[in-house]
């Protein structure tokens, strides 16, 4: 399987962290606060949809709330494949960082 990109990694981690509250607004807010990535409200759905199509995320419909003008939320959840992909990239990072010599200039 391909190695996922940094952005995808960040989005997957955000979804993981937000657990049952991972939908457009919260994902976007967390990405901005934690990583400084500024997605537009609609724009965030482009990578999210891509990840769904790759099978790393699934989405499900939530209940509508009044402050959303009666519109429902679309929640995202990691799939086992998504967790695998994150684990793999963490292992890769560990391997790549492990036993690095002192930087010399």
């Amino acid at each position, binding site marked *: 399987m391909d190695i996922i990109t940094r952005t995808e990694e960040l989005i997957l981690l955000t979804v993981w962290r937000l657990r049952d509250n991972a939908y457009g607004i919260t994902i976007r807010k967390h990405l901005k606060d934690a990583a400084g990535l500024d997605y*537009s409200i609609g724009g965030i759905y*482009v990578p999210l949809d891509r990840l769904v199509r790759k099978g790393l995320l699934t989405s499900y419909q939530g209940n509508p709330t009044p402050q959303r003008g009666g519109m429902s939320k679309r929640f995202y959840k990691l799939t086992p494949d998504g967790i695998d992909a994150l684990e793999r990239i963490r292992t890769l990072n560990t391997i790549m960082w492990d036993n690095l010599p002192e930087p010399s200039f």
Partner: protein
Amino acid sequence: MGKLSRNIHSPKIARWLLERIVAMQDYSPIVGDFEEAYCYMAESEGRYRATAWYWGQIFRSLPGLIYQSIFWSIMMFKNYLKIAVRNLLRNKGYSAINIFGLAIGMACCTLIFLYIQDELSYDRFHEKTAQIYRLTPGTNKDNQPTNANGSFSAAPTMAKDFPEVLHAVRFRKMGWGEKRVIAHEDQRFYEEGFFFADSNVFEVFTYPMIYGDPRTALKQPFSLVITEAVAAKYFDTPNPLGKSLKIDPYNDGDFQEYQITGVIKNLPANAHLQFDFLAAFDSQKGRKTGWGLDAVYSYVLLHPDADAQALEARLYEWQETYMGEDPWFTLHLQPLADARLYPMPRGEPTPGGSIEYIYIFSAIAVFILLIACINFMNLSTARSSRRAREVGIRKVMGAFRRQLIKQFLGEAILLSLAGVLLAFLLVELLLPYLNDILDKRLAIEYWENLELVAGMLGLGLMTGILAGSYPALFLSSFQPINALRGSAASKERGGESFLSAAGLRKVLVVCQFAISVMLIICTTVVYNQMSLVRSKNLGFDRELIVVAPVNNEIRQNYGAFKQEILNHPDISYLSMTEQVPAKAGNGAGYRVEGQEHGMGLTRFFVDHDFAETYGVEMLAGRDFDEAFATDSAQAFIINETLWQRLGWASPEEAIGKGISMSHSGNTYEGNIIGVMKDFHLFSFRDGLSEVVLNIMPMAKMNFISFRIQPREISQSIAHLQSNWQHFSPSYPFDYYFLDEDFARLHQADERLGKTFRYFAFLAIFVACLGLLGLAAFTAEQRTREIGIRKVLGASVGSIVLLLSKEFTRWVILSNLIAWPLAYLAMSQWLKDFAFRIELGVDVFLISAAIAFIVALATVSLQTIKAALSNPIDSLRYE
């Protein structure tokens, strides 16, 4: 997220925009996200900032959203396309019938459109077409124009007397279709398109001149304007100004030198007057004035504000000042643009078209298109009932009704557009054949004929929408639960509403067949009428007569020439005449003893041997006889029709009556010595004209006719040829058989009759395609019924009968509709022929039988297959 109040809402326009942008997919989570973020911001930072932010967000989101909606609509389109293609392939037969039928219909329609467009374009290339009128004399009793040719003096005198007539142009054609010899250095050609024309011709007509000055080109006598093609034929240089050609315009051996003063572009094919050479009018030998009817075509250019009808009304009175009281012909003004489609019965320079054929062909085009479209709709609606289950599934999966309508409409439009494309292909394929039959040069210029292309596409689109709207609206209204409860249920539910659709289909099929039957009847009648024309007794033996133009060398040695010719055993008679049948057209003014008014009658100058050569019989009195010296100047023979018009009880009563003829300014007086049986001079549309025959000096004669025996014709021709060369070395022997010329007279009718047959055949073919499709569909729908019937012991015959019964009823009904309509149409068409077939019951019965047999054969093809199939297969069906 703090305390959010319910009454804070985002700006309406922005939200509406947002919903539009994401309309293609499930938009609620995204719109919801926006609402929530807006609410939150309005709480913390105030509404104005929130609104500004909202708008900003929408614009920032646009690219991503647009990408998304395009992506999904492409996905859906791919799915629709896939389903459409699968459906097409699953029902290969139906699809082929559907598309091919529509394509044939549209192709026919386009071909006919091209033909009509060409016919209507005649003579419209002149800049002043709307102001140009043709002078058409009328010589018959009811004051209708009859001749395309007129007199020398009428047009120029009009220009002088009426201020609204700005110009008058005359074209004088030499002879009656016989060719003229034109020589350049040692080359000699026989040319047909030689005219004398007035010098202002280029001010009235638009004939673009390449070399020379249009204002002065024909001013000087013996100046000549030629077309590009002629210039290329005779000269090496493209610019032959100042060179000369030797021409013998009178066939009298006197070659005159004409200097070339202008070269014009070749004439377009859609001009009713076709010429290659125009010589200055003043170069003519002999008489250049007169009020008789000569081979002079006159055109006048009226002032833009002039009232042509008012002018025409004043002409008769005006004629009296020049022609004396009670002129023997009336003068009429015909708009130039009408010259092609409303040709005169006599003297047309080129065979004319016919407005009736424009109507007839338009009707056929509409009929064929109607049949094809009906087919398309019938088959589409019939087939669509089989897709109820797909609709159910789609609805369950969340398809909106709007999407289903779009899908079905799109599919129908796709099919019909495929038909249009195929139609264009067919047009390209068939156009050469049509051109061959019609002797035209039609071409489809896509860029210049944009309205045609747009019309075809529009028509395809409309057919698609009409054909698709029924399934689109009806099927999309299914309750998914009913549609999915199995085909039986859906059929049952559909049963009653389908009744109306099936009823509509029946009506349409009956219409279709009625049209087909009408076309069969019309084709048969046209064919019969044309056979009558071909075999009609002309009053003389046209097969045995050879005609050649006469020239001065022959005239001078006529006695010796005649002697030599008659030495051959197979050549029994020869005779010189001024005109010959099928090329006649000249008239003269006559006064007959006992008649109050002068009469315009057809003149026919002959010599002593005319009756023998042509084999015409006498009804009363005697033929011209060399024994009577007075016969060569004072004897007249009238024909049967004229005798009848003159109102004498018996032909014998006419004998001895006094008669006078005014011709070329002279008056010839004499007595009637005989009444001749009728013989045809003109096309059968005109019937027999009133003819007066008399003997005139040889100088008036233009043609010589030989009567040969039907034995070894080539030897007789060789004998004529060798003698001709001996007596007339400067002129080639340019002969033709008289029957060929008569055939040419009816060529337009023949050609159109043929075209009509092909189109009628195609119409019937397309109608049968539709019937085949419907029969197959009905048989398929009743597969299980047929199986059960067979298991219960029904015979193949009874099943075929069962399935054919309905179609039979349709065919009978459509016959009942078609008969009166066809009868009306055909009696209208036949009315124009002076000699016509009777419209008997047989034609109708035969046509009905043909339609019935074709329909039955088509339907049987399917029903027999259905009836023969193994009941096990049919019961296992579905």
